[in-house]
């Protein structure tokens, strides 16, 4: 995968880092090493692993929560929440708001 000038400009803009005097070659080399990850096969229903702290919730309170809570309340996209804040939001299965 070769990063185009347009890609690089976009990356520079969103990262707020100028590419002047920067070795794009090194960037490209690292990307080439990582690129093969795209072709590793995973089962379609594999749940993303967010962080080990998130697993603590998965195997304790969160499972209890699944049993006790109507499904529509579990539709919140917890994957997009910062793992630091996940416990505060879903760790208490007795929370009446849930």
């Amino acid at each position, binding site marked *: 995968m070769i990063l185009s000038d347009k890609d690089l400009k976009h990356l520079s803009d969103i990262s*707020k880092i100028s590419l002047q005097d920067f070795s794009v070659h090194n960037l490209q080399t690292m990307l080439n090493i*990582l690129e093969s990850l795209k072709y590793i096969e995973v089962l379609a229903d594999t749940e993303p692993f967010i962080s080990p702290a998130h697993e603590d919730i998965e195997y304790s309170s969160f499972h209890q929560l699944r049993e006790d809570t109507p499904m529509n309340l579990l539709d919140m996209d917890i994957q997009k929440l910062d793992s630091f804040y996940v*416990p505060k939001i879903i760790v208490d299965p007795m929370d009446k708001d849930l």
Partner: protein
Amino acid sequence: MNKSMTVIDRIRQKIDQGYATSRDIFELYRIKINRYNPQINAYTSINEDCSFTNEYNNKPVSKLYGVPIALKDNICTKILPTTCASSMLRDYKSPFNATVVTSLERCGATILGKTNLDEFAMGSTTTHSIFGATRNPWSLRCLAGGSSGGSAAAVAARIAPVALGSDTGGSVRQPAHFCGILGMKPSYGTVSRFGLIAYGSSLDQIGVFSNFAYDAAIVLDAISGLDPLDPSTRKLPNNFFSHAINNPLRGIRMGFDPKTLYDMSSPLQTLVENHIVKLKSEGIQIINISLPNLQDAVRTYYVLALGEAATNLSRFDGIRFGYKYEYSKNIEELYLKTRTYGFGEEVKKRILLGNYMLSSEQYSSFYLKAQKIRRQIYNSFLSIYEKVDCILLPTVNYTAESLSNDLEGDLLEDKYTVLANLTGDPAVSFPIGHMSSLPFGLQLTTKRFNDPLLLNIVHILEQYGDCHLKVPKIIVDEYI
């Protein structure tokens, strides 16, 4: 040296028997630092007076009372700058202490100084630093490893009795391996990371360097446990890390993947095979296992680490703290110039790639995919731990490289260390021998929160070997 006495034991004995005060011990280490640090470049700043740090020095009952400790320079301290070895934070002094620093000071430990690292802990050589490269005490022409190379070199050179580092993908264990000491990354959630400048939040963990397993256990007991300021932490029993020290090893099932021997040189293979014979003689049962695909694991690690790094380092914008470009005409120029001049080449590369992995076009191909592969790796280890209690594997499959070698292109060399970060499991690297006068170590890992098992195994092995007692030749006067 008395084999049964660890460094912390000997410091405590001198204080308890009235031969020295905590200040004497602190001054002794400062003398040693002044003598050896110029050759090694392990420290970025040195504490001038222990009375500034030891607010709780009336508690001599603690095992850490009077023990000087070095801290990696990405752990926030009020008394010394916290630079992350970056121009971005060159003059930064934190208004608060990291939780681990507060815990150490409560025990009566003194902060010796801050140690060198790769900028923002991104690297594995401790050469990407505004303070210059740290040298390996075993050979000043060799790398100390990284990113916590300063802490590892300081403990190896006996200019710190123990030290803290941070481990995101092996940054404690790999330099410990190269410097011939113990480096422990405890389970994710055991030690608070409040005040550790974040790199990859789902991977980062503060770890410890020491010459003895018992010393590592004592330090970890002091700094671990529930911290309301880090919701990932857990409450742990008292003396969680040290309680199992001296338990018999008979019956422990240790997994080993024979394929890991194939990419080592023949003399190193022999060293490892001899060590396995020694483990068997201690009553440990060695069981063949097959590790997950290591190349996939290291790519998964880097995609996740870069994405998290790009997010974490977005806070360095020239406004809240750190370096600020003074001559900007507008806010966009302030951001751009501050970050362009403030970050080094390696950090900029990782931020740019991290943002690429997180961009809407690439997110599902890279970041989300990596999270799913991480789940598969995690599940693979859960399956392995149904058959074994712990796993023996290399830390790195070679000894320290020359300073002139550029290893940064070879990310895949981290393949053995990233596994424990991906799973959150504890892992320890410990020395098993020397090859051409350079140390070589192995790594042990186990399931999460089973940390005491690892320290106990290393402790028992220390009783039957002297590898951990060897001192680099440059050290000619090993006090303490």
